[in-house]
């Protein structure tokens, strides 16, 4: 008799999901006690997404954050359940693409590392560097006699604001994306920092990421998505503060004058891509070290296995 294999929450999923949740909680609690500005609370979710598919990854993420709060170890986790669900979903799609099965060339990892650190430096510099106008404009806008001092936000009508941003119709405005022009300005004003960032990033990518380049890239993209989804939640529900190590980053960005939403988004963009890249890399290493026989049980990994040519010698594990 041919019993059809149940898709969805079959017994393999039921056995794997609690393990994934335990890994999530263990990683998250460890990082919380070390007060690092990363999370490391999605390794299990990424693993489940990679092995069992996007929808089960979504369920795992949501359940994981819910249970983390239910156990009483992290009172805020349940409000970020959507973020965790998104991470599981994207990890599942990445798994379908075979990202965790294909080793990437090391020079690609170096490039990914360099580009990532470069983009990160650019992002951080945007926050702490004046975009236009003369040096001192930005600091003057934060002076105590300025009515916007407490919030640190430049608003329309504020003469410093008009000097900081040039609008269409103003003399000196040139067509084309103002963002790129401003980025070029920021880079041109501090070329050494960006050069060092690119080189250090490339070195780290080569040494640490090694062959997990595709997984790392998928992790970076997932991290950006996670930052976008989590910033509004962190800003509006908690005022940007969750009692973890990332609060120091939020405080730093607030000190540079950004409002809460921008600070939360900035903190997310600094922490999340790196954190998810690390998680994806860890899951890549885990899947690489699993016996092939075990991988056969998982449909999402199986699909990628079949499309990958067997380049290793067929030794029995």
């Amino acid at each position: 008799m041919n019993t059809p294999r149940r898709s969805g929450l079959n017994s393999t999923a039921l056995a794997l999901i609690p393990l994934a949740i335990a890994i999530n909680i263990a990683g998250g609690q460890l990082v919380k006690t070390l007060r690092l500005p990363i999370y490391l609370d999605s390794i299990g979710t990424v693993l489940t997404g990679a092995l069992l598919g996007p929808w089960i990854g979504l369920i795992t993420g949501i359940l994981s954050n819910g249970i983390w709060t239910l156990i009483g170890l992290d009172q805020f986790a349940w409000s970020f359940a959507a973020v965790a669900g998104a991470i599981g979903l994207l990890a599942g799609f990445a798994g379908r693409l075979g990202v965790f099965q294909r080793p990437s060339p090391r020079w690609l990892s170096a490039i990914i590392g360099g580009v990532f650190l470069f983009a990160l430096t650019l992002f951080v510099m945007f926050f702490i560097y004046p975009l236009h106008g003369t040096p001192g404009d930005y600091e003057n806008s934060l002076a105590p006699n300025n009515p916007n001092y407490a919030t640190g936000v430049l608003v329309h009508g504020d003469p410093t604001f008009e000097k900081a941003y040039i609008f269409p119709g103003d003399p000196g405005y040139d067509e084309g994306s103002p963002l790129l022009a401003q980025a070029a300005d920021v880079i041109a004003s501090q070329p050494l920092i960006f050069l060092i960032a690119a080189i250090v990033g490339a070195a780290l990518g080569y040494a640490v990421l090694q062959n997990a380049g595709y997984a790392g890239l998928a992790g970076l993209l997932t991290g950006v998505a996670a930052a976008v989804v989590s910033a509004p939640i962190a800003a509006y529900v908690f005022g940007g503060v969750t009692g973890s190590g990332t609060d120091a980053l939020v405080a730093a960005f607030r000190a540079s004058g950004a409002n809460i939403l921008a600070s939360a988004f900035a903190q997310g963009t600094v922490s999340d891509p790196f954190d998810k890249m690390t998680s994806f890399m860890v899951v890549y290493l885990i899947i690489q070290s699993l016996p092939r026989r075990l991988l056969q049980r998982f449909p999402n990994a199986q699909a990628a296995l079949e499309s990958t040519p067997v380049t290793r010698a067929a030794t029995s594990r």
Partner: protein
Amino acid sequence: MQPIYSPGDSPLHRLHPLTKLAIAGLILAATYLVPGALTPLALFFVTLILTIVGGVARSILSTVFKLLLPVTLSLFLIQGILFPPAGATLLPWSLGPIRLTYEGLLFAYLISARLLVLSTTILLVLRTTHPADLVFALTSRGLPRSIGYILLVSLQIVPDMTARATAILEAQRSRGLETQRGLSKVRAIVPLLGPLVVGALVDVEERAMALESRAYTAPGPKTSLRELVDTAGQRIARWLVLLGIAALIAGRVFLALQ
């Protein structure tokens, strides 16, 4: 970390799980919906009395304070001192160079107090309810059995994984893994997490086969080994609690519309 549920014979232990969940829901709803700065503290004292009735006061309080201390500190630093809300009124006295604001301190206090009530209530329910009873009560009221199973195993898996992790840590240390100095803690992550995760994943296959051999995923009704005691009084109490929560929500909406 010991398992969450602590067996006992207090009145709280004997209540039906859904009753406890309903009461917890009422307390939480009151914390967030009833206006007034002293409400969270008052509700915390109510919950404190319940923990004493349940006989789990000391363990819950120590856990809660350990968890809440970093959050409260962060909140106090960031909202109270460093970045007070706009237009906040300064307090007349100052701690040296630091000026505190009334609104900032109030915000930090409110969030901390609410978290205190939230944590205490959740831990109270979990400590006085056996996980299997809790999940059985939920699944008999409509929670999908798969989700119930995941909840059940997750509630019990953390001490199990911690024990595994400790064994692996000691094994690796006896092989010469350096874990005391600062930088080596980062390098020690891979030799510690690797065996933990791979070992647990290999177990997944066995667990899945165990579930299949017990026909867990077969469709149709199941007979349960555990029985829950549910009195008419508790049923009435649950309905009253639900009405109370609805009344709180309605009252809050009414206040907001004024």
